Protein backbone atom coordinates (compact mmCIF):
# COMPACT_ATOMS: atom_id res chain seq x y z
CA UNK A 1 0.00 0.00 0.00
CA UNK A 2 2.61 2.47 1.03
CA UNK A 3 4.31 2.02 -2.31
CA UNK A 4 1.48 3.86 -3.94
CA UNK A 5 2.34 7.08 -2.25
CA UNK A 6 5.84 7.82 -3.30
CA UNK A 7 4.73 11.17 -4.57
CA UNK A 8 3.39 12.33 -1.24
CA UNK A 9 6.56 14.07 -0.34
CA UNK A 10 6.17 16.26 -3.38
CA UNK A 11 2.87 17.51 -2.14
CA UNK A 12 4.10 18.75 1.15
CA UNK A 13 6.32 21.60 0.07
CA UNK A 14 3.59 22.79 -2.23
CA UNK A 15 1.42 23.96 0.59
CA UNK A 16 4.29 25.80 2.13
CA UNK A 17 4.59 28.00 -0.89
CA UNK A 18 1.19 29.46 -0.12
CA UNK A 19 1.33 32.98 1.14
CA UNK A 20 -0.65 32.02 4.19
CA UNK A 21 1.26 29.36 6.05
CA UNK A 22 -1.08 26.47 6.62
CA UNK A 23 -1.80 25.41 10.12
CA UNK A 24 -0.34 22.08 10.98
CA UNK A 25 -2.34 21.38 14.06
CA UNK A 26 -4.02 18.03 13.80
CA UNK A 27 -7.05 18.71 15.90
CA UNK A 28 -8.77 15.43 15.36
CA UNK A 29 -8.00 13.12 18.15
CA UNK A 30 -9.89 10.30 16.53
CA UNK A 31 -7.46 10.20 13.64
CA UNK A 32 -4.32 9.79 15.63
CA UNK A 33 -3.36 6.68 13.76
CA UNK A 34 -3.33 8.59 10.46
CA UNK A 35 -2.40 12.17 11.26
CA UNK A 36 -2.80 15.06 8.86
CA UNK A 37 0.51 15.87 7.30
CA UNK A 38 -0.40 18.98 5.37
CA UNK A 39 -3.39 21.11 4.56
CA UNK A 40 -4.30 22.86 1.36
CA UNK A 41 -6.63 25.82 1.85
CA UNK A 42 -9.79 25.90 -0.24
CA UNK A 43 -10.94 29.44 -0.85
CA UNK A 44 -14.24 30.49 -2.34
CA UNK A 45 -14.38 33.64 -4.38
CA UNK A 46 -17.38 35.60 -5.47
CA UNK A 47 -18.24 36.50 -9.01
CA UNK A 48 -18.63 40.02 -10.30
CA UNK A 49 -22.20 41.13 -10.72
CA UNK A 50 -24.05 40.18 -13.90
CA UNK A 51 -21.82 37.26 -14.68
CA UNK A 52 -22.53 33.59 -14.74
CA UNK A 53 -20.00 30.83 -14.73
CA UNK A 54 -20.98 28.09 -17.14
CA UNK A 55 -19.57 24.71 -18.03
CA UNK A 56 -20.04 23.96 -21.70
CA UNK A 57 -19.74 20.29 -22.47
CA UNK A 58 -19.16 19.02 -25.98
CA UNK A 59 -20.00 15.32 -25.89
CA UNK A 60 -18.86 14.82 -29.46
CA UNK A 61 -15.51 16.49 -29.11
CA UNK A 62 -12.40 14.85 -27.66
CA UNK A 63 -11.03 16.72 -24.67
CA UNK A 64 -7.71 17.35 -26.35
CA UNK A 65 -9.23 19.25 -29.27
CA UNK A 66 -9.98 22.64 -27.85
CA UNK A 67 -12.13 25.18 -29.60
CA UNK A 68 -9.46 27.76 -29.19
CA UNK A 69 -7.17 30.06 -31.14
CA UNK A 70 -7.55 29.40 -34.87
CA UNK A 71 -10.40 26.95 -34.35
CA UNK A 72 -12.27 29.01 -31.81
CA UNK A 73 -16.02 29.10 -31.53
CA UNK A 74 -17.32 31.44 -34.22
CA UNK A 75 -20.34 32.87 -32.50
CA UNK A 76 -22.93 32.07 -29.87
CA UNK A 77 -26.59 32.92 -29.54
CA UNK A 78 -28.85 32.67 -26.54
CA UNK A 79 -32.57 32.64 -25.97
CA UNK A 80 -32.50 34.42 -22.64
CA UNK A 81 -35.65 33.20 -20.97
CA UNK A 82 -35.51 29.63 -22.17
CA UNK A 83 -31.73 29.38 -21.86
CA UNK A 84 -31.20 27.73 -25.22
CA UNK A 85 -27.65 28.25 -26.30
CA UNK A 86 -26.41 27.82 -29.85
CA UNK A 87 -22.81 27.88 -30.90
CA UNK A 88 -21.31 27.89 -34.37
CA UNK A 89 -18.04 26.05 -34.56
CA UNK A 90 -15.74 25.61 -37.53
CA UNK A 91 -15.46 22.27 -39.28
CA UNK A 92 -12.39 20.67 -40.70
CA UNK A 93 -13.22 20.29 -44.37
CA UNK A 94 -10.02 18.46 -45.23
CA UNK A 95 -11.04 15.11 -43.82
CA UNK A 96 -14.31 13.21 -43.78
CA UNK A 97 -16.06 16.04 -45.54
CA UNK A 98 -18.50 15.39 -48.33
CA UNK A 99 -18.59 18.36 -50.64
CA UNK A 100 -21.61 17.05 -52.52
CA UNK A 101 -23.66 16.73 -49.37
CA UNK A 102 -22.55 20.15 -48.29
CA UNK A 103 -23.78 21.60 -51.57
CA UNK A 104 -27.03 19.74 -51.20
CA UNK A 105 -27.56 21.43 -47.86
CA UNK A 106 -26.75 24.84 -49.17
CA UNK A 107 -23.04 25.01 -48.47
CA UNK A 108 -22.52 23.92 -44.93
CA UNK A 109 -19.30 25.50 -43.76
CA UNK A 110 -19.79 25.47 -40.03
CA UNK A 111 -21.34 23.24 -37.46
CA UNK A 112 -24.12 24.48 -35.24
CA UNK A 113 -24.26 23.02 -31.78
CA UNK A 114 -27.06 23.65 -29.38
CA UNK A 115 -28.01 22.84 -25.85
CA UNK A 116 -30.01 24.12 -22.94
CA UNK A 117 -28.33 25.71 -19.95
CA UNK A 118 -29.33 23.97 -16.77
CA UNK A 119 -28.85 25.34 -13.29
CA UNK A 120 -26.31 23.73 -11.02
CA UNK A 121 -25.97 23.54 -7.30
CA UNK A 122 -22.89 22.51 -5.44
CA UNK A 123 -20.54 22.53 -8.41
CA UNK A 124 -17.43 24.65 -8.42
CA UNK A 125 -14.69 25.38 -10.87
CA UNK A 126 -11.36 25.33 -9.14
CA UNK A 127 -8.04 26.80 -10.05
CA UNK A 128 -4.89 25.90 -8.17
CA UNK A 129 -2.73 28.90 -7.42
CA UNK A 130 0.40 28.76 -5.32
CA UNK A 131 -0.78 25.65 -3.59
CA UNK A 132 -4.19 27.03 -2.81
CA UNK A 133 -7.40 25.82 -4.33
CA UNK A 134 -9.55 28.73 -5.43
CA UNK A 135 -13.15 27.80 -6.03
CA UNK A 136 -15.88 29.67 -7.79
CA UNK A 137 -19.40 28.38 -8.00
CA UNK A 138 -20.67 27.18 -11.36
CA UNK A 139 -24.10 28.50 -12.26
CA UNK A 140 -25.04 26.58 -15.35
CA UNK A 141 -24.07 23.64 -17.47
CA UNK A 142 -25.02 22.90 -21.05
CA UNK A 143 -24.31 19.98 -23.31
CA UNK A 144 -23.81 21.24 -26.82
CA UNK A 145 -24.68 18.74 -29.49
CA UNK A 146 -24.98 19.11 -33.25
CA UNK A 147 -28.36 20.52 -34.09
CA UNK A 148 -28.31 19.59 -37.80
CA UNK A 149 -30.82 22.28 -38.63
CA UNK A 150 -29.72 22.36 -42.26
CA UNK A 151 -31.51 19.05 -42.68
CA UNK A 152 -34.65 20.50 -41.14
CA UNK A 153 -34.33 23.41 -43.50
CA UNK A 154 -34.07 21.09 -46.49
CA UNK A 155 -37.14 19.18 -45.40
CA UNK A 156 -39.06 22.37 -44.79
CA UNK A 157 -38.30 23.78 -48.22
CA UNK A 158 -39.26 20.48 -49.84
CA UNK A 159 -42.53 20.52 -47.96
CA UNK A 160 -43.25 24.09 -48.94
CA UNK A 161 -42.59 23.30 -52.57
CA UNK A 162 -44.88 20.32 -52.36
CA UNK A 163 -47.62 22.39 -50.80
CA UNK A 164 -47.30 25.07 -53.43
CA UNK A 165 -47.63 22.52 -56.21
CA UNK A 166 -50.68 20.97 -54.64
CA UNK A 167 -52.38 24.28 -54.10
CA UNK A 168 -51.77 25.17 -57.68
CA UNK A 169 -53.32 22.07 -59.21
CA UNK A 170 -56.54 21.58 -57.33
CA UNK A 171 -57.52 24.48 -55.23
CA UNK A 172 -61.30 24.35 -55.00
CA UNK A 173 -61.82 20.62 -54.89
CA UNK A 174 -61.36 19.94 -51.25
CA UNK A 175 -62.89 21.96 -48.56
CA UNK A 176 -62.03 21.17 -45.03
CA UNK A 177 -64.43 22.17 -42.39
CA UNK A 178 -62.77 22.38 -39.07
CA UNK A 179 -64.85 22.48 -36.01
CA UNK A 180 -63.46 23.55 -32.74
CA UNK A 181 -65.09 23.98 -29.43
CA UNK A 182 -63.80 26.71 -27.28
CA UNK A 183 -64.37 26.60 -23.63
CA UNK A 184 -63.97 29.52 -21.36
CA UNK A 185 -62.82 27.34 -18.53
CA UNK A 186 -59.22 26.67 -17.74
CA UNK A 187 -59.59 22.95 -18.11
CA UNK A 188 -59.25 23.13 -21.85
CA UNK A 189 -56.61 20.68 -23.09
CA UNK A 190 -53.22 22.27 -22.95
CA UNK A 191 -49.94 21.33 -24.50
CA UNK A 192 -47.90 18.89 -22.50
CA UNK A 193 -44.89 20.07 -20.58
CA UNK A 194 -42.39 19.07 -23.20
CA UNK A 195 -44.37 20.52 -26.07
CA UNK A 196 -44.98 23.66 -24.08
CA UNK A 197 -41.27 24.08 -23.45
CA UNK A 198 -40.64 23.47 -27.12
CA UNK A 199 -43.19 26.06 -28.11
CA UNK A 200 -41.71 28.58 -25.72
CA UNK A 201 -38.29 28.00 -27.22
CA UNK A 202 -39.61 28.40 -30.73
CA UNK A 203 -41.48 31.56 -29.91
CA UNK A 204 -38.44 33.25 -28.47
CA UNK A 205 -35.80 34.81 -30.63
CA UNK A 206 -32.06 34.65 -30.21
CA UNK A 207 -29.90 37.39 -28.86
CA UNK A 208 -26.38 37.35 -30.14
CA UNK A 209 -23.62 36.81 -27.62
CA UNK A 210 -20.19 37.45 -29.06
CA UNK A 211 -17.62 34.78 -28.34
CA UNK A 212 -14.44 35.98 -26.68
CA UNK A 213 -11.54 33.59 -27.01
CA UNK A 214 -9.35 32.68 -24.07
CA UNK A 215 -6.35 34.54 -25.43
CA UNK A 216 -8.09 37.90 -25.52
CA UNK A 217 -7.39 40.60 -22.98
CA UNK A 218 -10.96 40.69 -21.78
CA UNK A 219 -10.99 36.99 -20.98
CA UNK A 220 -7.69 37.16 -19.16
CA UNK A 221 -8.89 40.09 -17.10
CA UNK A 222 -12.12 38.32 -16.24
CA UNK A 223 -10.24 35.20 -15.27
CA UNK A 224 -8.09 37.22 -12.94
CA UNK A 225 -11.07 39.00 -11.50
CA UNK A 226 -12.95 35.83 -10.73
CA UNK A 227 -10.19 33.54 -9.56
CA UNK A 228 -8.13 35.94 -7.57
CA UNK A 229 -8.62 35.25 -3.90
CA UNK A 230 -8.93 38.72 -2.44
CA UNK A 231 -10.62 37.59 0.68
CA UNK A 232 -8.80 34.72 2.33
CA UNK A 233 -10.29 35.03 5.76
CA UNK A 234 -10.95 31.72 7.37
CA UNK A 235 -14.70 31.50 7.64
CA UNK A 236 -15.83 30.36 11.04
CA UNK A 237 -18.56 27.87 11.52
CA UNK A 238 -20.38 26.72 14.62
CA UNK A 239 -21.92 23.76 12.90
CA UNK A 240 -20.65 20.52 14.34
CA UNK A 241 -21.11 17.18 12.67
CA UNK A 242 -24.37 16.45 14.40
CA UNK A 243 -25.83 19.81 13.46
CA UNK A 244 -24.70 19.25 9.92
CA UNK A 245 -26.46 15.93 9.65
CA UNK A 246 -29.51 17.72 11.01
CA UNK A 247 -29.19 20.27 8.23
CA UNK A 248 -28.93 17.53 5.65
CA UNK A 249 -32.00 15.79 6.96
CA UNK A 250 -33.89 19.06 6.98
CA UNK A 251 -32.91 19.66 3.39
CA UNK A 252 -34.00 16.21 2.30
CA UNK A 253 -37.37 16.48 4.02
CA UNK A 254 -37.91 19.96 2.59
CA UNK A 255 -37.63 18.64 -0.93
Amino acid at each position, binding site marked *: MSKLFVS*DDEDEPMTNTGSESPTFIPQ*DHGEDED*PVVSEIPMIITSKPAQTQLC*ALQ*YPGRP*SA*RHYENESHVLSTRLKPSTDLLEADVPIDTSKFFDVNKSDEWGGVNKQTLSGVLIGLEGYYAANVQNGEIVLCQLDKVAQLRPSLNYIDKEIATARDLHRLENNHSGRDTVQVVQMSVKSSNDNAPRLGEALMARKKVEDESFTQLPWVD*SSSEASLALKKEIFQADNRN*VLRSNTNEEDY*IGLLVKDISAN
Partner: protein
Amino acid sequence: MSDKIPTSSRLDSLSRRAPAGPASSSGPKAGKFKPKNIARRTKEERDANAPATAAEPTDKPHQRSMRGGLRGGRGGRGGANRALQGTHLVQAGPLASGNVLSDTKQNFSRSTTRSPTPGFLSSLVKREEGSREGSVGPQDSDDEGDLSKINMNQEYRFSKEETELFPVRAPREHVTSEQDTLMNSSRSTTPEPDDGTLKNVLATKDHQLHINLDQLQVDEAAEDDARLAQDHKDIAEAITKLNNDPASYLMFQLPRVLPEFETTNEVKPEISEEDNVEPVKPQLEGQIATLRVHRSGKLSVKIGNVIMDVSKGSNTAFLQQLVCMKRGGDSQLGENEIDERGNYLLGHLQDKIVITPKLA
Protein backbone atom coordinates in the same frame (compact mmCIF):
# COMPACT_ATOMS: atom_id res chain seq x y z
CA MET B 1 -99.56 -7.71 -28.16
CA SER B 2 -96.56 -9.53 -29.45
CA ASP B 3 -98.33 -11.59 -32.03
CA LYS B 4 -99.78 -8.50 -33.57
CA ILE B 5 -96.48 -7.31 -34.81
CA PRO B 6 -96.50 -7.43 -38.57
CA THR B 7 -93.93 -9.69 -40.12
CA SER B 8 -92.44 -6.90 -42.15
CA SER B 9 -91.17 -5.23 -39.05
CA ARG B 10 -89.35 -8.29 -37.83
CA LEU B 11 -85.73 -8.78 -38.26
CA ASP B 12 -84.66 -9.84 -41.70
CA SER B 13 -83.16 -13.05 -40.55
CA LEU B 14 -86.29 -13.98 -38.70
CA SER B 15 -88.66 -13.16 -41.50
CA ARG B 16 -86.63 -15.01 -44.03
CA ARG B 17 -86.40 -18.01 -41.88
CA ALA B 18 -90.13 -18.54 -41.74
CA PRO B 19 -90.59 -19.43 -45.41
CA ALA B 20 -87.27 -21.24 -45.55
CA GLY B 21 -88.20 -23.60 -42.77
CA PRO B 22 -90.63 -25.84 -44.58
CA ALA B 23 -88.63 -25.72 -47.81
CA SER B 24 -85.51 -27.02 -46.21
CA SER B 25 -87.29 -29.70 -44.34
CA SER B 26 -88.64 -31.03 -47.59
CA GLY B 27 -85.31 -30.82 -49.35
CA PRO B 28 -83.05 -33.79 -49.76
CA LYS B 29 -80.17 -32.37 -47.78
CA ALA B 30 -81.97 -31.94 -44.56
CA GLY B 31 -80.32 -33.47 -41.61
CA LYS B 32 -77.96 -33.12 -38.76
CA PHE B 33 -74.61 -31.48 -38.68
CA LYS B 34 -71.94 -33.98 -39.51
CA PRO B 35 -68.44 -32.94 -38.68
CA LYS B 36 -65.88 -34.07 -41.13
CA ASN B 37 -63.46 -36.31 -39.45
CA ILE B 38 -60.09 -35.80 -41.03
CA ALA B 39 -57.82 -38.66 -40.42
CA ARG B 40 -54.45 -37.82 -38.98
CA ARG B 41 -51.70 -38.48 -41.42
CA THR B 42 -48.73 -40.51 -40.52
CA LYS B 43 -45.40 -38.86 -39.91
CA GLU B 44 -44.02 -40.12 -43.20
CA GLU B 45 -46.81 -38.50 -45.09
CA ARG B 46 -46.40 -35.26 -43.25
CA ASP B 47 -42.68 -35.19 -43.85
CA ALA B 48 -43.17 -35.85 -47.50
CA ASN B 49 -45.55 -32.91 -47.86
CA ALA B 50 -43.59 -30.49 -45.74
CA PRO B 51 -41.94 -27.65 -47.69
CA ALA B 52 -38.27 -28.14 -48.06
CA THR B 53 -36.34 -25.87 -45.71
CA ALA B 54 -32.88 -24.78 -46.59
CA ALA B 55 -30.14 -25.87 -44.28
CA GLU B 56 -29.40 -22.98 -41.97
CA PRO B 57 -25.86 -21.82 -41.86
CA THR B 58 -24.79 -21.49 -38.28
CA ASP B 59 -21.36 -20.05 -38.65
CA LYS B 60 -22.31 -16.40 -39.03
CA PRO B 61 -23.34 -15.04 -35.70
CA HIS B 62 -24.51 -11.62 -36.82
CA GLN B 63 -26.68 -13.07 -39.49
CA ARG B 64 -28.31 -15.30 -36.99
CA SER B 65 -29.06 -12.47 -34.68
CA MET B 66 -30.50 -10.55 -37.58
CA ARG B 67 -32.85 -13.33 -38.44
CA GLY B 68 -33.84 -13.55 -34.84
CA GLY B 69 -34.83 -9.96 -35.07
CA LEU B 70 -36.93 -10.61 -38.11
CA ARG B 71 -38.74 -13.44 -36.52
CA GLY B 72 -39.21 -11.69 -33.24
CA GLY B 73 -42.53 -11.97 -31.58
CA ARG B 74 -45.10 -14.62 -32.10
CA GLY B 75 -45.50 -14.18 -35.84
CA GLY B 76 -42.70 -16.52 -36.57
CA ARG B 77 -42.67 -15.29 -40.13
CA GLY B 78 -41.27 -11.86 -39.72
CA GLY B 79 -44.67 -10.54 -38.84
CA ALA B 80 -43.26 -7.89 -36.57
CA ASN B 81 -41.17 -6.46 -39.32
CA ARG B 82 -44.01 -6.49 -41.76
CA ALA B 83 -45.92 -4.34 -39.35
CA LEU B 84 -43.20 -1.77 -39.69
CA GLN B 85 -43.41 -1.65 -43.46
CA GLY B 86 -44.15 1.77 -44.76
CA THR B 87 -43.20 3.20 -41.41
CA HIS B 88 -40.31 5.58 -41.28
CA LEU B 89 -38.19 4.75 -38.29
CA VAL B 90 -36.46 7.76 -36.93
CA GLN B 91 -33.56 6.89 -34.74
CA ALA B 92 -31.90 9.40 -32.55
CA GLY B 93 -30.61 9.58 -29.08
CA PRO B 94 -28.82 7.10 -26.90
CA LEU B 95 -30.95 4.17 -27.98
CA ALA B 96 -30.33 4.75 -31.64
CA SER B 97 -27.87 1.94 -31.91
CA GLY B 98 -30.70 -0.35 -32.82
CA ASN B 99 -33.34 -2.45 -31.19
CA VAL B 100 -34.50 -5.92 -31.77
CA LEU B 101 -37.06 -5.01 -34.36
CA SER B 102 -35.05 -2.79 -36.58
CA ASP B 103 -31.75 -4.52 -36.25
CA THR B 104 -31.74 -5.58 -39.84
CA LYS B 105 -29.19 -5.39 -42.53
CA GLN B 106 -30.43 -1.91 -43.32
CA ASN B 107 -29.21 -0.80 -39.97
CA PHE B 108 -25.81 -2.25 -40.54
CA SER B 109 -25.32 -0.34 -43.70
CA ARG B 110 -26.53 2.82 -42.02
CA SER B 111 -23.94 2.68 -39.33
CA THR B 112 -21.08 2.48 -41.75
CA THR B 113 -20.23 5.78 -43.27
CA ARG B 114 -19.05 5.79 -46.79
CA SER B 115 -16.32 8.28 -46.85
CA PRO B 116 -15.81 10.40 -49.88
CA THR B 117 -12.09 10.16 -49.33
CA PRO B 118 -11.15 6.51 -49.63
CA GLY B 119 -7.66 7.52 -50.58
CA PHE B 120 -7.19 9.17 -47.25
CA LEU B 121 -8.45 6.11 -45.49
CA SER B 122 -6.21 3.70 -47.31
CA SER B 123 -3.25 5.85 -46.43
CA LEU B 124 -4.39 5.59 -42.85
CA VAL B 125 -4.16 1.88 -42.97
CA LYS B 126 -0.71 1.80 -44.39
CA ARG B 127 0.56 3.86 -41.56
CA GLU B 128 -1.24 1.69 -39.13
CA GLU B 129 0.25 -1.43 -40.62
CA GLY B 130 3.70 -0.02 -40.11
CA SER B 131 3.33 0.90 -36.46
CA ARG B 132 1.25 -1.90 -35.31
CA GLU B 133 3.15 -3.32 -32.46
CA GLY B 134 0.98 -4.60 -29.69
CA SER B 135 -2.23 -3.16 -31.00
CA VAL B 136 -5.18 -5.47 -30.95
CA GLY B 137 -7.47 -3.85 -33.41
CA PRO B 138 -10.42 -5.13 -35.31
CA GLN B 139 -8.13 -6.56 -37.94
CA ASP B 140 -9.97 -9.83 -37.85
CA SER B 141 -13.27 -8.29 -38.74
CA ASP B 142 -15.12 -8.62 -42.00
CA ASP B 143 -14.58 -5.04 -43.05
CA GLU B 144 -10.86 -5.28 -42.88
CA GLY B 145 -10.29 -5.24 -46.59
CA ASP B 146 -12.87 -2.63 -47.43
CA LEU B 147 -11.64 0.65 -46.10
CA SER B 148 -13.75 2.87 -48.23
CA LYS B 149 -16.09 2.85 -45.31
CA ILE B 150 -15.65 3.23 -41.63
CA ASN B 151 -17.79 1.26 -39.27
CA MET B 152 -18.60 3.59 -36.43
CA ASN B 153 -19.64 0.68 -34.27
CA GLN B 154 -16.14 -0.54 -33.82
CA GLU B 155 -12.99 0.90 -32.50
CA TYR B 156 -10.12 1.43 -34.87
CA ARG B 157 -6.62 1.50 -33.58
CA PHE B 158 -5.19 4.12 -35.81
CA SER B 159 -2.66 6.52 -34.50
CA LYS B 160 -4.01 9.17 -32.22
CA GLU B 161 -3.53 12.11 -34.56
CA GLU B 162 -5.48 10.34 -37.28
CA THR B 163 -8.48 9.49 -35.20
CA GLU B 164 -9.00 12.86 -33.63
CA LEU B 165 -11.91 13.39 -35.96
CA PHE B 166 -13.43 10.09 -34.98
CA PRO B 167 -16.35 10.20 -32.59
CA VAL B 168 -15.67 10.21 -28.90
CA ARG B 169 -16.31 6.78 -27.52
CA ALA B 170 -16.48 5.70 -23.96
CA PRO B 171 -13.45 3.69 -22.97
CA ARG B 172 -14.35 0.06 -23.01
CA GLU B 173 -12.87 -2.06 -20.33
CA HIS B 174 -12.20 -5.63 -21.18
CA VAL B 175 -12.80 -7.18 -17.84
CA THR B 176 -10.51 -10.06 -17.38
CA SER B 177 -12.58 -12.17 -15.11
CA GLU B 178 -9.85 -13.00 -12.70
CA GLN B 179 -12.38 -13.46 -9.99
CA ASP B 180 -14.21 -16.00 -12.08
CA THR B 181 -11.18 -17.97 -12.99
CA LEU B 182 -10.12 -17.91 -9.38
CA MET B 183 -13.46 -19.23 -8.31
CA ASN B 184 -13.44 -21.84 -11.02
CA SER B 185 -10.00 -23.04 -10.23
CA SER B 186 -10.75 -23.28 -6.55
CA ARG B 187 -13.84 -25.21 -7.35
CA SER B 188 -12.06 -27.65 -9.57
CA THR B 189 -9.24 -28.22 -7.13
CA THR B 190 -11.57 -29.02 -4.29
CA PRO B 191 -11.04 -32.73 -3.80
CA GLU B 192 -14.18 -34.71 -4.04
CA PRO B 193 -14.65 -36.71 -0.89
CA ASP B 194 -15.30 -40.13 -2.27
CA ASP B 195 -16.00 -41.92 0.90
CA GLY B 196 -18.15 -39.31 2.70
CA THR B 197 -21.82 -39.53 3.15
CA LEU B 198 -24.07 -37.00 1.51
CA LYS B 199 -24.21 -34.99 4.69
CA ASN B 200 -20.46 -34.81 4.90
CA VAL B 201 -20.17 -33.73 1.33
CA LEU B 202 -22.74 -31.01 1.82
CA ALA B 203 -21.06 -29.79 4.97
CA THR B 204 -17.67 -29.51 3.34
CA LYS B 205 -19.16 -27.79 0.32
CA ASP B 206 -20.97 -25.35 2.56
CA HIS B 207 -17.84 -24.67 4.50
CA GLN B 208 -15.89 -24.10 1.33
CA LEU B 209 -18.57 -21.74 0.07
CA HIS B 210 -18.41 -19.69 3.23
CA ILE B 211 -14.66 -19.45 3.00
CA ASN B 212 -14.95 -18.33 -0.60
CA LEU B 213 -17.59 -15.76 0.26
CA ASP B 214 -15.57 -14.33 3.10
CA GLN B 215 -12.55 -14.19 0.88
CA LEU B 216 -14.59 -12.45 -1.79
CA GLN B 217 -15.78 -9.84 0.68
CA VAL B 218 -12.29 -9.25 1.94
CA ASP B 219 -11.08 -8.99 -1.62
CA GLU B 220 -13.80 -6.53 -2.51
CA ALA B 221 -13.04 -4.36 0.48
CA ALA B 222 -9.38 -4.42 -0.37
CA GLU B 223 -10.21 -3.56 -3.95
CA ASP B 224 -12.31 -0.61 -2.82
CA ASP B 225 -9.54 0.59 -0.58
CA ALA B 226 -7.02 0.31 -3.35
CA ARG B 227 -9.32 2.18 -5.73
CA LEU B 228 -9.86 4.96 -3.23
CA ALA B 229 -6.15 5.16 -2.53
CA GLN B 230 -5.56 5.42 -6.28
CA ASP B 231 -8.19 8.17 -6.45
CA HIS B 232 -6.45 10.12 -3.74
CA LYS B 233 -3.13 9.69 -5.41
CA ASP B 234 -4.60 10.88 -8.71
CA ILE B 235 -6.20 13.90 -7.06
CA ALA B 236 -2.95 14.86 -5.37
CA GLU B 237 -1.16 14.50 -8.68
CA ALA B 238 -3.76 16.55 -10.51
CA ILE B 239 -3.54 19.34 -7.97
CA THR B 240 0.22 19.36 -8.20
CA LYS B 241 0.11 19.28 -11.98
CA LEU B 242 -2.42 22.06 -12.32
CA ASN B 243 -0.73 24.32 -9.81
CA ASN B 244 -0.47 27.79 -11.34
CA ASP B 245 -1.90 26.63 -14.66
CA PRO B 246 -4.34 29.41 -15.47
CA ALA B 247 -6.03 27.58 -18.35
CA SER B 248 -6.96 24.35 -16.60
CA TYR B 249 -9.57 23.98 -13.96
CA LEU B 250 -10.77 21.24 -11.69
CA MET B 251 -14.42 20.63 -11.14
CA PHE B 252 -15.42 20.25 -7.53
CA GLN B 253 -18.70 18.85 -6.41
CA LEU B 254 -19.50 19.82 -2.84
CA PRO B 255 -22.60 18.86 -0.93
CA ARG B 256 -25.51 21.07 -1.84
CA VAL B 257 -25.95 21.92 1.80
CA LEU B 258 -22.84 23.24 3.46
CA PRO B 259 -22.30 23.80 7.15
CA GLU B 260 -23.44 27.24 8.18
CA PHE B 261 -20.81 29.90 8.31
CA GLU B 262 -20.76 33.09 10.22
CA THR B 263 -21.25 35.51 7.40
CA THR B 264 -18.96 38.37 8.02
CA ASN B 265 -20.25 41.85 7.52
CA GLU B 266 -18.11 42.29 4.47
CA VAL B 267 -20.64 40.54 2.32
CA LYS B 268 -23.21 43.24 2.18
CA PRO B 269 -26.69 42.04 1.26
CA GLU B 270 -26.89 44.56 -1.48
CA ILE B 271 -30.61 45.16 -1.63
CA SER B 272 -30.21 48.13 -3.82
CA GLU B 273 -32.78 50.76 -4.58
CA GLU B 274 -35.82 49.69 -6.46
CA ASP B 275 -34.81 46.67 -8.50
CA ASN B 276 -36.41 43.94 -6.52
CA VAL B 277 -34.56 40.96 -7.85
CA GLU B 278 -34.90 37.73 -5.94
CA PRO B 279 -33.01 37.89 -2.66
CA VAL B 280 -29.66 36.50 -3.63
CA LYS B 281 -28.11 34.22 -1.07
CA PRO B 282 -25.09 35.99 0.30
CA GLN B 283 -22.15 34.63 -1.60
CA LEU B 284 -19.60 32.94 0.56
CA GLU B 285 -16.21 34.45 0.29
CA GLY B 286 -13.04 33.32 1.96
CA GLN B 287 -11.49 30.09 3.09
CA ILE B 288 -14.24 27.62 3.73
CA ALA B 289 -12.33 24.39 3.83
CA THR B 290 -9.01 22.67 3.84
CA LEU B 291 -7.98 19.68 1.82
CA ARG B 292 -5.93 17.61 4.20
CA VAL B 293 -3.27 15.15 3.26
CA HIS B 294 -2.82 12.34 5.75
CA ARG B 295 0.38 10.50 6.36
CA SER B 296 -0.94 7.40 4.65
CA GLY B 297 -1.59 9.46 1.54
CA LYS B 298 -5.31 9.59 2.10
CA LEU B 299 -7.16 12.82 1.57
CA SER B 300 -10.01 14.36 3.45
CA VAL B 301 -11.71 17.72 3.42
CA LYS B 302 -12.71 19.71 6.44
CA ILE B 303 -15.46 22.18 5.74
CA GLY B 304 -16.04 24.26 8.81
CA ASN B 305 -15.89 21.65 11.54
CA VAL B 306 -17.17 18.78 9.45
CA ILE B 307 -14.84 16.24 7.93
CA MET B 308 -15.81 14.88 4.56
CA ASP B 309 -14.70 12.17 2.19
CA VAL B 310 -12.96 12.89 -1.08
CA SER B 311 -13.23 10.82 -4.21
CA LYS B 312 -12.66 11.25 -7.86
CA GLY B 313 -15.46 11.81 -10.30
CA SER B 314 -15.61 9.83 -13.49
CA ASN B 315 -13.21 10.95 -16.14
CA THR B 316 -14.66 12.59 -19.16
CA ALA B 317 -13.22 12.00 -22.58
CA PHE B 318 -14.97 14.98 -24.09
CA LEU B 319 -14.23 18.66 -24.13
CA GLN B 320 -15.49 20.84 -21.29
CA GLN B 321 -15.09 24.57 -21.44
CA LEU B 322 -15.32 26.98 -18.56
CA VAL B 323 -17.09 30.03 -19.83
CA CYS B 324 -18.05 33.24 -18.13
CA MET B 325 -21.31 34.45 -19.56
CA LYS B 326 -22.27 38.08 -19.48
CA ARG B 327 -25.75 38.13 -20.83
CA GLY B 328 -26.52 41.67 -19.81
CA GLY B 329 -29.78 42.92 -18.48
CA ASP B 330 -32.84 43.72 -20.49
CA SER B 331 -32.31 47.38 -19.86
CA GLN B 332 -30.82 49.51 -22.56
CA LEU B 333 -27.22 50.39 -22.21
CA GLY B 334 -26.31 53.79 -20.95
CA GLU B 335 -24.39 56.28 -22.98
CA ASN B 336 -21.01 55.52 -21.53
CA GLU B 337 -21.48 51.83 -20.94
CA ILE B 338 -19.69 49.44 -23.19
CA ASP B 339 -21.56 46.40 -24.35
CA GLU B 340 -19.73 43.68 -22.52
CA ARG B 341 -22.17 40.95 -23.33
CA GLY B 342 -20.64 37.78 -24.52
CA ASN B 343 -19.26 34.40 -23.66
CA TYR B 344 -15.75 34.63 -22.34
CA LEU B 345 -13.73 31.44 -22.57
CA LEU B 346 -11.69 31.12 -19.39
CA GLY B 347 -10.24 27.67 -19.77
CA HIS B 348 -11.03 23.99 -19.74
CA LEU B 349 -12.32 21.75 -17.01
CA GLN B 350 -10.26 18.66 -16.42
CA ASP B 351 -10.71 16.32 -13.49
CA LYS B 352 -13.71 16.13 -11.28
CA ILE B 353 -13.43 15.78 -7.53
CA VAL B 354 -16.42 14.81 -5.45
CA ILE B 355 -16.69 15.69 -1.77
CA THR B 356 -19.29 13.77 0.16
CA PRO B 357 -20.38 14.02 3.79
CA LYS B 358 -19.05 11.25 5.93
CA LEU B 359 -22.00 9.51 7.46
CA ALA B 360 -20.41 7.06 9.79
